[in-house]
């Protein structure tokens, strides 16, 4: 009980101190706004298509990055180990045909989102590449107050 309390305090402290994370997608993605639950379904692999012809390609930042931490905390609500276990299980249960792809930098994310149709990635809000679409979460951009991915 005490350990949970300490972890909750630390998480709240982290959130309070983290920079917002922007969700970027390739320009051909026919979506502009998502609710946080929709975004969570998207990143959990429960929604695999933007539309019947466009598949969702998840790009996840490699470990040890602030954006990954924010996403794990706000969207997945999982630890690093839980995240890995989640996707390995999902792949081996064949719930999904492929898991999220790892990117190692914002530039790499920028390149892949630009190159891969239906790709979605998250980057630090202050380093959003030009020419990419940033999805609103719950109708809010990263610069708006109350943006949930911080």
């Amino acid at each position, binding site marked *: 009980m005490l350990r949970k309390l300490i972890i909750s305090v630390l998480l709240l402290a982290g959130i309070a101190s983290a920079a917002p994370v922007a969700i970027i997608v390739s320009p051909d993605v026919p979506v502009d706004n998502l609710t946080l639950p929709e975004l969570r379904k998207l990143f959990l692999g429960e929604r695999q298509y933007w539309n019947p012809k466009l598949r969702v390609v998840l790009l*996840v930042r*490699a470990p040890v990055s602030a954006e990954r931490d924010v996403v794990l905390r706000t969207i997945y609500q999982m630890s690093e180990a839980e995240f890995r276990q989640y996707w390995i299980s999902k*792949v081996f249960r064949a719930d999904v*045909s*492929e898991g999220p792809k790892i990117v190692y930098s914002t530039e*790499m994310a920028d*390149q892949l989102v630009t190159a891969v149709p239906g*790709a979605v990635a998250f980057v630090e809000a202050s380093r959003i590449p030009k020419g990419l679409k940033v999805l609103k979460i719950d109708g809010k951009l990263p610069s708006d107050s109350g943006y949930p991915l911080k």
Partner: protein
Amino acid sequence: MTIRRRFTISFTGIMAMFALNAGVYVWSNQRRANAMEELSRAVSRQVLLSSVQLTINDAQKQISVMSQLGTESGVNSGLPASDKKQFYSKLDSAAQNIDAFRKLQKDTPIVSDFQQSFHELAASWRVFIDNFGVNQTTAIAELAVRGDPLSRHVIQELLPKVQTEENQEAAAASSNFREASRISDEITFSIFIVSTIAALIAAWLIARDIARGLRALKAGAAALGQGNLSYRINLQQEDELGDLASAFDQMSSHLNSAQQALTAAHAQEKQKSEDLAQALEELRQTQDRLVVQQKLASLGTLTAGIAHEIKNPLNFVTNFAAILRSLIEDLRASIDSQKAKIDPSELSFIEETLGDMDTNAARIREHGKRADDIVKGMLMHSRGQGGDLEATNINSLIAEYVKLAYHGLRATDMNFNVTIEENYDPAVGELKVWPHDLSRVILNIANNGAFSADQKAKRLAGTKTDFKPTLRLTTRKLAKEVEIRIYDNGDGIPEAIRQKVFEPFFTTKPAGSGTGLGLSMSHEIIVQQHGGQLRVESKPGEYAEFIITLPLSAGAAKGSAALSARTNG
């Protein structure tokens, strides 16, 4: 058709059935082997496909995990060469299995597309592996842009289709195997049934014909064994039994012909023997007749001589007896005129003596007359008779003289009573005969018959026997002669004297009742004079029947010749 041919055809048919069955067995075995091979290939393909599926799934998961886990160090830390080699080896193995699978499978578009897509997927995965940890962006981009869509296409679309197609192929192979087994079993069973039925029918037909033929031959042999040589089998079969039956019939025919020839020869020999016997009998009868005739002729000659010598003295006897009676009458008349002059006692003696003398003279004349009649008969017998050959109605002549005989007997004996039965054949008509002589014959024989029947009736009178004395006369016209039968139911003629009745002076009548010349004279008239025959049939105590046959024409001529010869002699 011959039995040999039937057996040959039946055997050939059965062998053909066997051959067909063997062919079906080979065919079905081949088809089963093909189906089994096809099934085996299907199993092999399924094994290969399962292996490929496992390999692809493993590789895909491996790639997926790698893509989402990445490397610990980020960039410039690619996979170890051994891991790459192992992964590539896995892909190569899957490619080889797909290639092997494709060789075992018909080259369908889906399989071709599957192989092509797998090659592209393997190439994409190679790019991913080569760039993984080295150029992660390229690796992820390759995977996201080509690898993942290809893997989804291969795993989620093509592989199920290939599996479905393969399952269908396996099911078809299995069905084909079962169908081949079923068809071969049905054909084999059908051929067995048809062979059995055909063999049974053939056996029945052959056995029936053979049995029928053997039965017919057996019946023929039995009939032949019982001596029925006219029996014919007539077996209408065109086979060995038919030939045998035909040969049997020919043998029977030959035996029959031989038997008939033998019978004919036997009959001919028998006829010859009978002819010889008859000729011998005729010869013997002729001999007897000649002896009798010779004897009769001798007797006739002797009788004629004696009669001639006796007749003159006999004439003196009878004539002088008549003269004596005349003289006695004259003497009696003289005495009557001188009666007064004679002593009554002397007169009585004289008249009594004259009466005795007249009586004796009358007896002398009477017996002399009778002796003269005998001598006349003897002379007539020895000389034959007179009269001319005339066409005479035989029936009328017989009827007339039978009545004369009846009334003659009736005149001498008032108790005489015989029933006359007459049965004359109108066809007899007239015949050239010596009617006077023939009438004497009829009169003699009818007289004898009526006398015999009457004597028998008188002897049986008083007894309870219902005897009716009968004299029956019958005429009948035969082919070359006329037959006259004179029957009486008197005492008949004993066998011992039957041959003597035609001899002169033979008689069974009481002394003084017959001369014994009647039948002898009748025989002379019929045989010698008319060229006919006279014979007698009799059963002693029951009947006697005299049978006269007169030739229609030749007999008369013969008779004329005989008479002429005798007259000349």
